[in-house]
């Protein structure tokens, strides 16, 4: 069973969102997503300063099985991207919710946070997909 921290929010496309409490969020892919993809070999990060709408494809994670788009969970401007993933994509496999974060957003509509799933909702989604 994959890990689903309760303090995070989730999307149907398997991104996690951490509310940093200052109008910004940190985004990554869930433990379930990294496990399904397998060993990651490449991560394409979003450009800092880019404006994203909800569900915009904004990054790519590639494993030996597949290349998958990462979708922006919320609307906002990219304020940071995890450059450390460039040489070490396996960080996402090792620590999906920590050092494996992918980018940060400054939210244009913070109320959208309420549209995301909580840990219970995401757990249900995984159970349904099974």
């Amino acid at each position: 069973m994959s890990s689903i921290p309760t303090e995070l929010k989730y999307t149907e496309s398997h991104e996690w969102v951490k509310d940093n409490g200052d109008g910004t969020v940190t985004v990554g892919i869930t433990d379930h997503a990294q496990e399904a993809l397998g060993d990651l070999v490449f991560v394409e990060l979003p450009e800092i300063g880019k404006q994203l709408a909800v569900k915009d494809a904004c990054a790519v994670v590639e494993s030996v099985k597949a290349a998958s788009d990462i979708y922006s969970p919320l609307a906002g401007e990219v304020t940071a991207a995890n450059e450390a993933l460039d040489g070490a994509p396996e960080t996402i496999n090792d620590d999906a919710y920590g050092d494996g974060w992918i980018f940060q957003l400054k939210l244009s509509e913070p109320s959208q946070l309420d549209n995301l799933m909580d840990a219970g909702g995401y757990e249900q989604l995984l159970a349904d997909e099974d």
Partner: protein
Amino acid sequence: MLIHEQSRPGRRATAQAPLETADHGDLPQALRRKQRAALPEVSELQAVRHYTRLSQQNFSIDTHFYPLGSCTMKYNPRACNSLASLPGFLARHPAAPESHSQGIMACLHELQDMLKSVTGMHAVSLAPAAGAQGELAGVMMIRAYHDARGDHERREMLVPDAAHGTNPASAIMAGFKVREVPTGSNGDVDIAALRDAVGPQTAGIMLTNPSTVGVFDRSIQAIAKSVHEAGGLLYYDGANLNAILGKVRPGDMGFDVIHMNLHKTFSTPHGGGGPGAGPVGVSKRLEPYLPIPLVTQGDDERYHWLDEDDRPESIGRMTAFGGNMGILLRAYIYARMLGAEGMRRVSEFATLNANYLQARLRDAGFQLAYPERRASHEFIITLKKEAKAFDVNTMDFAKRLLDYGYHAPTTYFPLLVPECLLIEPTETEPKEALDGFVESMNKIRAEAENDPETVKQAPHSLPLRRLDDVRAARQLDVAWKPAEGTA
């Protein structure tokens, strides 16, 4: 042993042609090599042994059952090769004038006509040199059509989530934005989601039918209506044409553009990733944009090339000269040998073989991805259950199949089905080959249960064991260098 490791300074093969010295005087100094290229220096015999050994290590249609889904790895009849290798074809210079090329142009003209007739399209160009290039030509024509009408806002291409990765790539190369359309749980395109997605921004939709999940999309007419009413065009990816050849015509389904993979459906060699041929067919309104050159027959009964002057609105040339002639000729001969009746038998036996294999694997307890659907020419099983129970995944199964003498089916595609194998037996396999495959799958599952390490460490019987594909992707370095301390 790598051929580089056999290299000894000064060793030579006998020259087969006089040595020519080229004049590189116009090449800028900055672009010239500082050192000689590190090419292996070996005798002719060593070179022959090297390539013969490589060919023996290879899996091929001529040696193995090759059920690689989506690739239509069928037998390439020897007659096609022999006839396409006639001296008159082989020795023709690509720049030969029309008056010296009437024979080959007659073949190409007939091939254009046969492809038109079997796909139900209005006109065909043979120029694109591969499936993906045919795709690019197809979406470029869609763009040229909208632009010629001043319809510059149509910049969005719809692509189902089950599509081949080349579809969105081609659309983006042609300057479109890609919008994904979901697949319903029954394998058909989610028609409600499609209706929400179409609008004045829609340039078209790229579809494979039967789709990559191995089923015929039953709502194709509703899809065509929805996209056409919104002002978009329909693009048909011919990847799975083998399933419907001579039975259903993309033109009749409402498609405006199609590319055909001659190296799949028309049985030309897949080679080592090429050369291929990806002719495109179009409806009447797209004819002016077809890639050049085209072959036409004049009132004088002679064949002529149509080029820039004849087709000023053409999207242009995709390749030098007329495309991959040797491949086009093989497809022409294949089509002539089959005739219309034979083409129908191709799709009948391709679907019969796929459905037989699907039923046998289902009865053996393997889980079908779309159990309620009949297979087209290919189908998907998911090894999710086995992965969970035995901790042996699809890739392990695939590698173990190599030990049993099979090229593995396509793994982990389409992406929307977890732990999947996409299996396409083609029409050219006898029943015994299909039965043998089922038996091997059963054996591997028993091994996964009782002796999982054997499966997880496969292959055991090949020249190389399991390769570290993760490290190869992370630290890609394919240039040969001498081992430390030996240079």
